[in-house]
């Protein structure tokens, strides 16, 4: 690090659309700080993809970088196209829980399965925030939302563990209360190869906190701090005890052959054959 971090260096001169107290500010700041600490003076080695939802606005149009804003849930398929065309670039997907593991969950699973070399940062605010707070596949059991006024009656999805099962090379979960761990995790993930997934449990005071009984963003962050436990701690706890907890940490870190490595190897091999013929 030769110079101090300035977020402005990576951002277009535009007014950000996020609500006061939104966790996205932390995610945006932490991501760009990680990029800075890795020595990237700009974002020219990155391409960003996002779908629909508040988190999709993190890169687009605010980052001074190439970005594609796609339809709801389809950022990972678009990222697949970009990565296969330009394997030399860091392809990063930003999305919310509704985008990545709601409407777009099949793409998430298949990208991890085929080990697509992209980093997916999922801001999990546990709600459909942009449309005003409807129940999502990640909403904690019994939470009041606009479409579950008496509390959600479905069990939430554990995205970080799903990524492990589906074949991801890296999967971690943090909350916005652990920005330092998050930053180190992002740095590690950017340097790694393969399908990398980071879930950030994030506060949405406007659409989630308000109905769930939190007075402000600070109360939500306090809730994260008090209820975030490590994977090791979680292993010693009973299922009922875990129900209200947020398990944070790295769920997997491993090496697997990536999709573009396999694809390009086949292309090289078959082209070589033609030359010999």
């Amino acid at each position, binding site marked *: 690090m030769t110079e101090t971090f300035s977020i402005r260096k990576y951002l277009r001169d535009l007014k950000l659309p996020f609500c006061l107290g939104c966790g996205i500010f932390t995610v945006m700041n932490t991501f760009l700080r990680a990029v800075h600490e890795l020595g990237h003076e700009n974002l020219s080695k990155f391409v960003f993809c996002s779908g629909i939802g508040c988190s999709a606005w993190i890169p687009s149009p605010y980052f001074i970088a190439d970005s594609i804003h796609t339809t709801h849930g389809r950022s990972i398929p678009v990222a697949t196209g970009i990565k296969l065309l330009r394997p030399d670039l860091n392809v990063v997907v930003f999305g919310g829980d509704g985008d990545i593991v*709601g*409407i777009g969950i099949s793409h998430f699973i298949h990208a991890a399965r085929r080990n697509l070399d992209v980093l997916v940062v999922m801001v999990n605010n546990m709600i*459909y925030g*942009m449309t*005003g707070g*409807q*129940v999502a596949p990640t909403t904690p059991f019994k939470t009041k939302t606009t*479409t*579950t*006024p008496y509390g959600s009656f479905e069990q939430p999805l554990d995205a970080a563990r799903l990524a492990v099962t589906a074949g991801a090379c890296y999967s971690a979960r943090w909350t916005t209360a652990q920005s330092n761990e998050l930053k180190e995790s992002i740095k590690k993930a950017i340097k790694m190869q393969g399908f990398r997934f980071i879930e950030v449990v994030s506060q949405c005071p406007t659409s989630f906190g308000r109905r769930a009984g939190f007075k402000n963003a600070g109360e939500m962050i306090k809730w994260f701090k008090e209820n975030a436990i490590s994977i090791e701690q979680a292993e010693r706890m009973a299922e009922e005890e875990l129900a209200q907890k947020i398990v944070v940490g790295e769920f997997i870190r491993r090496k697997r052959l990536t999709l573009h490595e396999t694809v390009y190897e086949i292309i090289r091999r078959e082209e070589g054959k033609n030359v010999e013929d």
Partner: protein
Amino acid sequence: MQNVIDTANHIVAYAAKAARVQVIAAYPITPQTSIVERIAELVESGELNAEYIRVESEHSAMSACMGAAAGGVRTFTATSSHGLVLMHEALHWASGSRLPIVMPVVNRALGPGWNIWADFTDSMSQRDTGWIQFYCAENQEVFDTIIQVYKLCENERVLLPAMVCLEGFILSHTYMPVEIPDQEKIDDFLPPYKPKWFLDVNKPISHANIVSPEWYMEFRYMIQEAMENAKQLIPEIDKEYGKYFGFEHGGLIDKYKCEDADLILLTMGTIGSEAKIAVDNLRKEGLKVGTARVRVFRPFPREEIRKLAENAQMFAVIDRGISFGMEGFLAEETKASLSNQKDQPLIAGFIAGLGGRDVTFKTIEKIAKKSSEWMRAGKVGKETVWVDLRK
């Protein structure tokens, strides 16, 4: 009877309740969301006795509705824009299966450029899916149409799904007074859905089966026939509704001062109600103008358009949407309806109000004046005019 002042989205929820829908499957999308939120409240409080499935996408919403409707119950969903186009595959499947699902569509532009405001391109691009399509001009009509449409779709001569379209924000989020009739009277007008066939373990059927070339055409012909039947039934049901509740909306086309009009403004949705103001103003200036608001786009009221054309010298067609590479949807269909007819009126198409841009009575007056110039000259200056296009 109850008088309420509320947004069209909440009125949609009350209409679903009044229709006693049994299964709802929906996914939130702006500007439809407040429909599904209000319905959630009605279901959870017990005011509406229905199953409400919070699905993970619109494609799943329509699929869940198909499952429920095949089980023989009254089914409901609502969507907008990208949600509707994501459903596209399932829309064909619902009409092909002859399931009378009713779906309000809160019209919104498609991206990119990302835009959440009113535009008809979302539902217009679904016109060939075999769904009946209604377009509303005010909140009362939204309520009445939903009740009417269940009666229509569940009729054995129809058995098709229907969209009830209303423009995003212009109607969806605008408060207007609406009369909600007594529930007993609605129950009398719209009795419970009693399908002739449905999934029943005691009388098993194979639903949506493979059909060989020997029979496929016949099944398609039956859908076309059902559309023609709907065209007959829509004005009858509208009249019957009027007798029950005092509100009629013009059947297939809502006509205003068209009897002696030389120039007729063909419109849809809220542009139709705005056009009435323009017509009144222009009549004061001596222009013999009227407006015909096409309320039903599928089945298309071809015969009524022909009847209107008999006395008019010119049609000015205003479209809040465009079929790229051709022209406005309504202009296209109007011209197609008049082919093979003698003494056709002049027809000019006007594209206006895309992506939520306001179309006020002043805009419409301007359109009418330009059209009347062309009418007097006996020649249309331009096939399609983009109104107030910025350079």
